[in-house]
């Protein structure tokens, strides 16, 4: 007989909804880390991350039967629920949006990124600057960066979680990385524009 630890998420969910506490515990331990980190990377607040994780698994207890295996994995389903709770927090409490793309952040970037964070990304300060840059992205770009880059979900899984097409994920990620380049470069947006112009002119000779 198969041990419960070897069961797939969907089976654990089925058992959990039938009232099996052990299945719930296993599923929670298997997925809580990713959900917590996703909420933390999206919000920048450990308190929000904890609340969102709590809400996601409470939702799973009450309304877990809405999960449809034909539409994706349990993991994607949970990320989708978490994303909705995070966005709800953003809309309900603007104070939880930790970093706006304002002058203060630009100053912070300039101070910490001299001579430039991309020169030495292994340093802790630089990791912190990347974290802040990710947090400063608009929501729709931030969520694809968090899911694809930080949670290492595939394009397909990310599309399932966000409820959009794979092409949308791909294009948003491309745009998000461009924005991150701009934020992490010492000269900001200008560098991106210059880079685009350079590519534009070089294309003629390639």
């Amino acid at each position, binding site marked *: 007989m198969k041990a419960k630890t070897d069961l797939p998420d969907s089976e654990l969910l089925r058992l959990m909804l039938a009232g099996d506490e052990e299945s719930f515990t296993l599923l929670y331990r298997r997925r*809580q880390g990713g959900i917590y980190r996703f909420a933390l*990377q999206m919000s920048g607040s450990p308190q929000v991350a904890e609340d969102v994780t709590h809400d996601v698994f409470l939702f799973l207890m009450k309304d877990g039967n809405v999960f449809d295996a034909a539409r994706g994995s349990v993991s994607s389903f949970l990320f989708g629920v978490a994303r909705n709770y995070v966005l709800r927090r953003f809309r309900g409490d603007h104070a939880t949006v930790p970093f706006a793309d304002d002058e203060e952040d630009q100053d912070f970037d300039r101070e910490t990124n001299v001579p430039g*964070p*991309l020169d030495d990304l292994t340093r802790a300060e630089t*990791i912190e600057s*990347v974290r802040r840059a990710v947090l400063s992205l608009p929501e729709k770009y931030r969520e694809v960066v968090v899911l694809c*880059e*930080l949670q290492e979900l595939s394009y397909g899984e990310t599309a399932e979680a966000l409820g959009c097409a794979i092409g949308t994920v791909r294009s948003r990620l491309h745009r998000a990385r461009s924005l991150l380049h701009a934020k992490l470069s010492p000269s900001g947006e200008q560098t991106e524009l210059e880079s685009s112009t350079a590519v534009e002119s070089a294309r003629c000779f*390639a």
Partner: protein
Amino acid sequence: MNCQRFESIASELARNQIMEADVRSEALAHSAKCVNCLARLRNEEMLTRGLNALATGMNSLEAPPALEARLVSAFRQPQVIVPMPVMRGRRFYWLAAAAAVLFIIFSVSTFRWHREQPAPHEARLTPPTPVKNVDGPAPQQIQTPKQPVFAVKSDDKPKHQPRRNVRGSALQAKAVITPNKDINSNHASEVATEFMPVGYWNAAALQDGGQIVRVELPRTTLASFGLPVNMDRYNEKVKADVLLGVDGMAHAIRFVQEKRLQ
């Protein structure tokens, strides 16, 4: 490969995403020739390393252990558990729709069946009781031994009650009751008016029972109820059925005439 094409796949290349081997080799070959594209690729690779470092640094973060205890506690509360429905998908909805249709059919047929039942306010008359008679000899009551309980359908009640100057007591006094031993057998050969109220009509008075008595009245009595009188036969009698309550009072009357043979 040109720079525009390289630009579109630079991040995929830096992230080591799966792509066709030919495209990868062409892109690397192009970056070897193009300084800008090479710089672009290096930037993408550094960004990827930075994001990977961030992901690695946060990889150990987990929800507080107290959260698990709270959720398990919530899980143990019975109202939280919602059993997964046995049937899912379209089959469930089809069955639900079929059940709804059956329920509607059952409701309609039950409603119709109730409407087809006889009216509940059917007046049941008790076996005949002696009739009080104020003047003259006591009238002979019409016995119906084979059918002691004589039901009067609601159709026999006066549907239209025109205002008339009715004098029930006078009618009762003048009534000359003649025996008719086979009143039921005459129904087929008789035509009758509807029961018309005599005096104050109170259907509640008939709930305790009553009695129909065949009488003969002067033909001029028809005029008292607004019915036409054939003056050529004004001195003749006319038959009538009087509905008596348990109090012995006349409550309604209908006039009876034998059918004429064609």
